[in-house]
């Protein structure tokens, strides 16, 4: 009995010592005995001490990232092909590879990036508060997000449009056929708003079933909870490929909205914006000039075309102008690849999440990918 007493009084002392450093309440002055306990706590506190980052001002973000030694990138963890966790616990996807490219540009090492899965709800707050350096989470570029939500979109990395998927045997061919039906959609997205807009303008009444995350949305759809499911077409394609019977589902031939998806940075640091922007252009140009991770060393050794030479850091000090080293673009292509490589790795014909290139081809192939000149 006396022993319990000892345990408990020790616990209480421990408690008071913790409280003494934890709260503003006037607590009894720690006696000699409690000081030792207090020290063990201090270790804990340091481990959880707030990290100082400066979120705004020209050049501040790059400086912070360099000092920290890694890039913190807000990503999705639930969209196969764009951002998800594989069975080995590694992040994969086109948005994820963009972050790796950015890390390669800054550090010459694509592994120096910390992926932070953020929900649709918290992504903008996470960016505003400086918790993440860049948001690369299939986020649609829109005016409100560009202004009121405190961010700037860099160049689009994937052109998408909202689509609608239905079971083939339902006989639904147009949006009007969905009159009176139920449609699965994910909350907090532009998709949810577009759906309401489009259906209102078509004068179609429907019931939404609104889910918190992509997984639940498609789980519910595949169980037959809804007559249709809507999200970006890329998402529909990648999700259809992993449904039990992909052939039994059809993506309607309608595009309900434009969905340019791209990385987003905070307002107020133009240097960081430029770095993020030109990382995208390097991926595009790499494909345009036919530079791949396999042949980039050869090309760098033998390049004669002035623009290629400038891009790979042989002429013109372009990297220094961005605040990076001159081999930044070389590192991106060498360590991550060009746009085509990244695309094929995540969304190419050999992946379960195959999406035809479509608008996401080079302008020379009739697509929308067009990089300003490297000079």
């Amino acid at each position, binding site marked *: 009995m006396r022993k319990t007493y000892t345990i408990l009084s020790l616990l209480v002392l421990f408690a008071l010592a913790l409280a003494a450093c934890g709260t*503003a309440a006037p607590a009894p002055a720690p006696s000699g005995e409690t000081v030792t306990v207090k020290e063990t706590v201090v270790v804990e506190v340091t481990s959880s001490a707030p990290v100082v980052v400066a979120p705004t001002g020209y050049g501040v973000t790059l400086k912070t990232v360099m000092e920290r030694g890694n890039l913190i990138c807000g990503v999705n963890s639930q969209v196969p092909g764009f951002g998800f966790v594989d069975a080995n616990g590694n992040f994969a996807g086109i948005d994820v590879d963009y972050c790796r490219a950015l890390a390669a540009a800054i550090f010459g090492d694509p592994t120096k990036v910390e992926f932070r899965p953020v929900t649709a709800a918290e992504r903008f707050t996470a960016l505003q508060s400086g918790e993440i350096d860049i948001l690369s989470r299939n986020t649609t570029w829109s005016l409100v997000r560009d202004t009121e939500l*405190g961010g700037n979109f860099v160049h689009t990395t994937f052109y998408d449009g909202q689509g609608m998927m239905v079971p083939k045997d339902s006989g639904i061919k147009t949006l009007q056929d969905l009159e009176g039906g139920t449609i699965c959609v994910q*909350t907090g997205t532009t998709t*949810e708003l577009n759906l309401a807009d489009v259906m209102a303008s078509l004068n179609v009444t429907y019931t939404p079933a609104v889910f918190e995350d992509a997984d639940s949305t498609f*789980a519910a759809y595949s169980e037959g*909870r809804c*007559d249709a499911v809507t999200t970006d077409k890329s998402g529909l394609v990648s999700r259809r490929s992993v449904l039990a019977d992909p052939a039994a589902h059809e993506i309607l031939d309608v595009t309900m909205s434009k969905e340019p998806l791209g990385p987003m940075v905070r307002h107020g640091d133009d240097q960081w914006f430029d770095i993020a922007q030109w990382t995208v252009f390097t991926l595009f140009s790499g494909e345009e000039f036919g530079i791949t991770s396999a042949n980039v060393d050869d090309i760098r050794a033998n390049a004669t075309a002035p623009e290629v030479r400038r891009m790979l850091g042989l002429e013109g000090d372009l990297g220094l102008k961005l605040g990076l080293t001159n081999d930044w673009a070389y590192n991106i292509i060498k360590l991550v690849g060009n746009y085509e490589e990244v695309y094929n790795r995540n969304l190419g014909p050999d992946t379960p999440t195959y999406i035809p290139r479509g608008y996401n081809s080079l302008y020379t192939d009739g697509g929308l990918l067009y990089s300003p000149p490297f000079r």
Partner: protein
Amino acid sequence: MQREYKPDTTIPFWRDERILKILGQIIFALSVLFVGMLIYQNMKAGLAKQGISLSYSFLKGVSGFDIAETSFAYDRNSTYWQAFLIGLLNTLSVSVVGILFATILGVILGVARLSTNFIINRLASFYLELIRNLSLLVFLIFWYLGVFLKLPRVKDAILWPGDIILTNRGVGIPWGIPTASFPTFRLILLGGLILTVVVFFALRAYSQRTGRAPLTLLWSLLTFVVVALVGWFILPEKPLTLDLAFVKGLNLSGGKILTPEFMALTSGLVLYTAAFIGEVVRAGIQSVSKGQVEASRALGLNGFQTLRLIVFPQALRVIIPPLTSQYLNLVKNSSLAISVAYPDVFYVANTIQNQTGRAVEMISLVMLTYLLISLLTSALMNWYNQRIKLVER
């Protein structure tokens, strides 16, 4: 106090306990205020940087999104405020239905737990142990994805007796549709309600005057039922026509369609909370000492009378406070609706916050709402608790 016998030594003020106490409090209050101000300043500065000022005026804006379950007319042109109200009403309906059924099931479980029947007793305790050690969130998600969405599709719907249709699009139950005579019927019901209250108080006065214990509640309820039945039959047209749910194409139609989200949330909360209420009820009944029962039997009361007049009133006194906190838990736990896609107040507020970026306003509004519901519920239950205490003495 102890030092008063040493008047020659004046205590320096830094050791005078009275002054220290006041000083300590002032310092405490100041530091709380200071931290509060700091937080407020930081928040304002942070928001100002993004060009946002704290204001609730955005609630008047057009919401632009649709909501699945609405209790009044709502579409994408309605305001954020209306969306919020819809969420609030949904929360309230889940809470009321949930509390009602959780109480019934909880009482059954509590009694079953004390049953002398071995199987029933074991089943009840197994159920209590099973549920009480699960995480509600996991349970709800499982209940929704693993049970309600795994119900058959509409074309293979399960039919239950009582014209209940079970599908993964929802559960259809028969429902009454008001006819032309319904307003009259409603008046009759109102009259019945007044009569019921009169009967209730009359019987209670009678009980207090004579010391007898008539079945007050039963008789008053019976009054209401009789009035309702008479009203139902004397009206030329039936006030309600029964509308059965049926399968129409790929969807359910007619009757009342309860969505899988509503069903999963409500039944999940009921099954979970009932386990806790069962324990409360069991403890309450066991708290009445055996001597009370024996004494009442010795006085010649029969089993039912013992239960009604001796055990129940005493058990109720023990049961009410923990029962209140279980009710409050149910209301607060209904915020997990977000995990089963049911648009309760938390979920709708979350959507609004998502679409507008107004985190501070929406979270504080939601917290205030829950706080208000909690305070109202506990005020109500405290009032009831006081009442039964008075009756006891």
